[in-house]
């Protein structure tokens, strides 16, 4: 699973800690999601989508689909 979390966060000038606060998770968890160490649960993914005001598929994409698009 790929995600655009880092880019979206940078666009809004938010630190990992800021995003972690908004999501009510730890900064390490945000870092782990950004670096692809783990995939968030559906509720957390929806929460992320809501915070960025974007559809979930604009933030997360399947590896194979992303590779095909490239």
């Amino acid at each position, binding site marked *: 699973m790929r995600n655009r979390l880092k880019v979206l966060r940078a666009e809004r000038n*938010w*630190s990992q*800690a*800021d995003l*972690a*606060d908004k999501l*009510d*998770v*730890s900064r*390490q*968890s*945000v*870092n*782990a*999601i950004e*670096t692809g*160490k*783990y995939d*968030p*649960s559906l509720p*957390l993914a929806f929460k992320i989508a809501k915070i960025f005001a974007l559809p979930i598929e604009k933030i997360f994409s399947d590896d194979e689909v992303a590779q095909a698009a490239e």
Partner: protein
Amino acid sequence: MSQSSQVQRRSPRERRKTLLTVLTFVFMTLYAVSFTADLLLEINLFWLTIALVLACTVCAFGWARLLDEGKINAHYVAWYWGGSAGLMVSSLIFVSLAPVLVSPNGMDAFIPQQLAAFATNLSFAAGFLLAMIPAAIGYVAWWIVLVSRR
């Protein structure tokens, strides 16, 4: 923003998590002391030991409920890889010691003569610790690697 984040991070939830972590370690230490006293001094601390184990369990559950899903995932990974690797080491030790352990009074060689009266208890404790300590070391090592990478 960051400063307010830091203040929020030490919210009641975080403080409760810290408190439960400290309490778990305190109860675990007391448990280890009571277990050792029970084992070596033959003081019957059965109910105290049960109470300490229950207190540890309650605190540990409370602490686990306060973890966010990223950390829960990290603990799963650490237990799966680190704990399994540690248990493999335990298995190798058990297998290599098997010829000694299955022979009559085989543990005597490992137990100092002064403690011979407690040989049964010590054998049991040694077996338990031999299984758990490598797994715990593996878990901690994997956890340190995960934390340092994140």
